[in-house]
């Protein structure tokens, strides 16, 4: 038995689950959709929720990014829009991000089921039957740039398919070529091609069709297998010996080697010049808001679009950051800070 001035445990971290004393903690911000944007959004939300103090240079350290504040991470970004600090060290408001694909995200956004709809293709291509006025309700926030790589199974890569021309790629996805022996450079036994596609409605799929075939609804009958998310595509490609797939850059690693793409005579090599603006399969990554952008949404988006966000979330996810011009342009779409 002892005595003290304060109750034990006070001031300690009681965990993020406790709410403000008056119970007015704003409801959580929800984002959902694209599995391409997911790495960015998820990183951002994880960082947000950790609400690292300014002293934590590993995750926050504002001075590294030219920000002058003593506040913790989420406190600072939310504070820009007047949100009060969370209780017990947690973020002023909670945020979460779900994972499916662009079509679902935009659909949910339109139905009011999420605050932010992640999409890796423009809404106009994604909801191709929507009217102008319907599309006008979406506010587009570009948060990063993806250069869609073409990946093949390791065995194929080792059998010589380290580069592929746009024409071959097209014939594979149009179903005209279905054996690797029909692919130039391939030096191996006859092997059927497993052309992997993403679910219809995914931004990766939409962007791929739009960029390669010129039409977001172009039929690609060569697809043998469709998976809902990028990560599943990666699993399939790495577990197969005959697969080719398009996906998002963030998911490329040694188990799913990316090939060089030859487009109109120009060679685009992964790790070198995929990020070039003229790479045909490059695309913007979007986080849409619906019927304007609220302060809550803006707080998170501002963090992602900021220089800090671009470095910590976009680049580290494996995507290309926005150029300064585009960044400023995007920031200008957000409501003003207080």
């Amino acid at each position, binding site marked *: 038995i002892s005595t003290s001035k304060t109750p034990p445990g006070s001031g300690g971290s009681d965990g993020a689950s406790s709410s403000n004393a008056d119970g007015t903690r704003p409801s959580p911000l929800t984002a959902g959709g694209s599995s391409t944007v997911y790495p960015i959004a998820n990183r951002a939300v994880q960082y947000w929720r950790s609400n690292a103090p300014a002293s934590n240079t590993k995750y926050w350290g504002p001075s590294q990014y030219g920000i002058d504040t003593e506040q913790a991470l989420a406190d600072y970004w939310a504070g820009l829009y007047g949100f009060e600090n969370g209780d017990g060290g947690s973020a002023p408001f909670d945020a979460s991000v779900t994972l499916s*694909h662009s079509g679902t995200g935009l*659909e949910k956004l339109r139905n009011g089921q999420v605050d932010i709809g992640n999409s890796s293709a423009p809404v106009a291509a994604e909801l191709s039957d929507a009217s102008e006025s319907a599309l006008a309700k979406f506010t587009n926030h570009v948060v990063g740039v993806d250069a869609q790589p073409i990946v093949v199974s390791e065995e194929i890569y080792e059998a010589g398919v380290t580069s592929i021309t746009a024409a071959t790629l097209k014939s594979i996805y149009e179903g005209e070529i279905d054996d690797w022996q029909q692919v130039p450079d391939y030096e191996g036994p006859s092997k059927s091609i*497993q052309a992997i596609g993403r679910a219809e*409605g995914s931004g990766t799929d939409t962007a791929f069709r739009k960029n390669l075939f010129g039409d977001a*609804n172009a039929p690609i009958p060569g697809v*043998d*297998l469709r998976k809902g998310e990028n990560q*599943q595509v990666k699993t*399939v490609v790495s*577990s197969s010996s005959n697969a080719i797939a398009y996906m998002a850059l963030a998911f490329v690693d040694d188990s799913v080697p990316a090939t060089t793409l030859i487009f109109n005579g120009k060679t685009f090599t992964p790790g070198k010049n995929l990020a070039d603006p003229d790479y045909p399969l490059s695309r913007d990554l979007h986080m849409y808001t619906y019927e304007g952008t609220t302060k809550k949404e803006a707080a998170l988006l501002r963090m992602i679009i900021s220089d800090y966000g671009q470095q910590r979330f976009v680049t580290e996810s494996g995507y290309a950051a926005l150029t300064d011009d585009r960044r400023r342009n995007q920031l200008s779409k957000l409501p003003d800070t207080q």
Partner: protein
Amino acid sequence: MSTADGGRFGRLQNLDEGTRRVGAGSAVTIVATVAAFLLFPAATIYPLLGFLAVVAYGWWRYQEATAKVVMALMTASTVVILGLITLYLLWQSVPVLRQMGIGLLTHVGATMWSPNDGVFSLVPMMWGTFLTTIIAMCVAGPLGIAGALFTSEMAPRWAREIIKPAIEVLAGIPSIVYGFLGFVIVNDYMMRELSLPIYGSLFGAGVVIGLMALPTIVSVAEDALAAVPDEMKDGSVALGATSWQTITAVTLPSAFSGVSAAIILGVGRALGETMAVTVMLAHTQTLPDPLYDVFGPNGQETLTSLIASQYGIASGDHMSALFAAGVVLFITVLTLSIGSQLVEARMREKLGGGA
């Protein structure tokens, strides 16, 4: 004895007015509550309070009648809920039926499923469901009946007492666990060993579903076999028949309805299995070529995996078509369930006299 004489020689007559009063009161108030909820939601509280008051008063005054009324209301709401689900499914699938007509269930062509072109034919998915179910039952049927026979007729008592509950527990393994194993092990194995063209096959999915349905079949069939009266079996053994002859000639035929119910239950589970197929199959809405090719890249979609993979991007006719897939599933399992109940009723009729 000590009871008051009034009680002892009380009137035999006593009118049951409780049911009428409570019944009328609660019926009026509950209807008012629902009406208020639909018309003036803000005023719902008053009839609801009224209803609660009626029930409370009834409970105190005529408990017997009130209990009956409350339970009747519970029954009614159960029926309403279950009916609502059924009707809603049917109603939602009307638009696509209008658009596709019977073609929804019969259309065969180059494109059979294309939301962009407004073509919705469930044929590939029904075929996929059919094939996976057949494969599953080829695995689970014989093994399941063998397991049931072994457990109920052959295993020593101690073994039976371990196996039976163990099998029942195994029947509880969630299907996503099977899906996970199927995705990371079965698909991988088949891809590697059989040089499958793509990662996933109807065959692999069917086998996994079969394994999943197996414990259910064993357990239900075992119950049916164990329920065959010993007198029946003794009758055969006492005639000098061997145990195996007794099993085939007496036990199995007598348990026929139960064993077939087990199989039908297994079929039902196989038909309705969602997660394993969703994660294992390639989601190609085409017909296999040739039709019986359960290893090839085509036709890898079932009714359930169609719904699970497309609900998120569907709207309009597309959504309606998914509901139609649900209705097809629903009607199939309902038919199976009614069929098995009929078989059971017939068998009961047939066996009713004796045993």
